[in-house]
């Protein structure tokens, strides 16, 4: 049988030569990753089930990313203390505690858990970002509990849609604009639903690994269950540095593998795009919103919290202050990103320009920090835009690239970033 990358990864995890689209198969996951809120719930459920420790602790990863900062008025800090105590008592090592934690999407890649050809169960479809290094995220929601008890679970083999990338991103345009373009086309249909988006084509390698992760993290909002990309030398170099001897397998799709659709996206035709709330398919060129006043601007979330995203924001902020009346939050995605941003002088730059740098975590994306109040208008690189997602229902969340967010923060209104970038190099060109 001729297979897609997703089929090959699932077949390997199932111990089978091949698997057919639509089949239910039993697989042994390579890893299972979950966030803090579910981890705490699950250790309580383990107690109820009479299970004293995680059955395969080396294969389970828990990351404090939703609530690593203790805040007033919630019980999360106390729960995290119980989780910490559980990890200590049972010798569970893959517990990424506050101070060592970032978004699990980044932790998986930075710590070499996500590697080519591996199958990862998780609690969230956005973790498809790990597909950028050739690992397949299978979102199983509350069933991550199963992986704390045994070493197998079922998967329904998804159909794939193939996206070929060509061309080069124009100046001031970001991989996030490709996410918006894909959402504009697919989020109002169910063309990607229960499918895996497989990325390839000559221009995949022109996107930095950071940008590829952000791109794949956004495919859920176009409707897809998951996403995976072909592996190039950039990925192999990155993974070899971090695999620490742990195995991996590079899979390429077979000639003649079956796709529900094959599409080419020419990066050179893209422009800065903004998603108008509350849906994901309400995507318009930034020029159509020019002048819409904002009160908050945020760079962060699993879509846009890596070094290249911060560098893009810094390109805009290098010569411009954040406008009065705008609160700008920038959230590096992990301690590694935070430290690198410091080494490159970005933390100092952001601070000097009037932006607030938050500690790693999901922060503003669900209003845990930087909550929106009545009347707020946010422009954000975050992932969701429905009413009440990040605080008040009477607040609007526009979604855009770090370039658009930073330029809008400077202007105090939604703005095309390109005029502010005159003479600037394009971060994408750097590998």
């Amino acid at each position, binding site marked *: 049988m001729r297979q897609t990358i997703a089929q090959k990864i699932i077949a390997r995890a199932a111990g089978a030569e091949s698997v057919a689209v639509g089949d239910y198969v039993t697989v042994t996951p390579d890893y299972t990753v979950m966030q803090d809120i579910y981890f705490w719930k699950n250790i309580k459920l383990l107690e109820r089930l009479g299970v004293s420790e995680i059955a395969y602790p080396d294969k389970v990863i828990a990351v404090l990313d939703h609530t690593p900062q203790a805040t007033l008025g919630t019980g999360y800090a106390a729960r995290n203390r119980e989780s910490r105590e559980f990890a200590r008592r049972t010798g569970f090592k893959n517990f990424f505690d506050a101070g060592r934690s970032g978004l699990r999407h980044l932790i998986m890649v930075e710590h070499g858990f996500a590697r080519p050809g591996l199958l990862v169960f998780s609690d969230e479809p956005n973790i498809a970002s790990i597909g950028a290094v050739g690992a397949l995220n299978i979102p199983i929601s509350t069933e991550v509990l199963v992986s704390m008890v045994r070493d197998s679970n079922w998967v329904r083999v998804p159909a794939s849609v193939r996206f070929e990338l060509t061309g080069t991103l124009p100046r001031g345009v970001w991989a996030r604009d490709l996410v918006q373009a894909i959402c504009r086309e697919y989020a109002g249909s*169910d063309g990607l639903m*229960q499918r895996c988006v497989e990325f390839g084509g000559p221009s995949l390698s022109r996107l930095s690994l950071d940008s590829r992760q952000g791109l794949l993290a956004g495919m859920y909002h176009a*409707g897809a269950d998951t996403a995976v990309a072909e592996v190039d030398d950039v990925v192999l170099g990155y993974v070899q540095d971090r695999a620490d001897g742990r195995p991996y397998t590079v899979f390429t799709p077979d000639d003649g593998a079956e796709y529900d659709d094959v599409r080419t996206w020419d990066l050179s035709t893209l422009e800065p795009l903004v998603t108008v709330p509350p849906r994901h398919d309400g995507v318009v060129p930034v020029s159509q919103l020019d002048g819409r006043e904002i009160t908050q601007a945020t760079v962060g979330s699993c879509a846009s919290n890596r070094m290249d995203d911060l560098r893009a924001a810094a390109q805009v902020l290098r010569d411009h202050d954040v406008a009065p009346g705008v609160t700008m939050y920038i959230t590096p995605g992990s301690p590694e990103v935070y430290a690198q941003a410091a080494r490159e002088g970005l933390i100092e730059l952001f601070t000097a320009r009037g932006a607030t740098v938050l500690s790693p975590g999901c922060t503003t994306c669900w209003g845990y920090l930087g909550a929106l109040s009545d009347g707020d208008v946010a422009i954000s690189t975050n992932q969701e835009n*429905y009413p009440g997602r990040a605080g008040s229902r009477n607040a609007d969340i526009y979604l855009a690239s770090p370039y658009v967010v930073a330029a809008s923060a400077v202007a105090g209104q939604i703005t095309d970033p390109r005029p502010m970038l005159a003479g600037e190099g394009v971060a994408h060109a750097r590998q």
Partner: protein
Amino acid sequence: MPASSLHTAGSAVVRGRVWKFGDWISGDDGIVRFSDLRNFGDDHDPAELARHCFAHLVPDFASRVTPGDIVVAGRGFGVPSHPPAPMALRAAGIAAAVVESTDSAFIRRSLNAALPVVTCPGITAAVADGDELEVDLTTGRMVTGSGTVLTTKPFSPAMLEVLDSGGLVPYLERYLAGEARA
């Protein structure tokens, strides 16, 4: 946990009255509202969840729904969602959902709450609000009140076992006791 009272066995053959909804009823701002259920991750009493179910779409839903009713909905039902969405449907008495499309996370999340969700392109054209509908998850066969037969992919034995157990946690109790077949 209060949610444990939700854990009664789901049925592999469901026959009930249809509540019909349109396209893009999300789990986070449709079935329930994420903004109504602070704080994220807290356990909610089933009676409270039942009151939230569709409350902003059909204000008297909680008083009119009867146990065993079936939701029929359009594209993207339950997308995106968090665990309270299927738990609210279950708490309200909904026995199954048949939808034009949804994502796999919602299907699994719902199964874990003992709520079977199946996709069936064409279902919204085939049934009207208030119609009878029968769904057999073991065969994937669905029959409307007027006798129209539609098909969906049957549940796998592993899925049926979770459903029959009453959701994920009771299933794992069974599994750990060596009583699970799949």
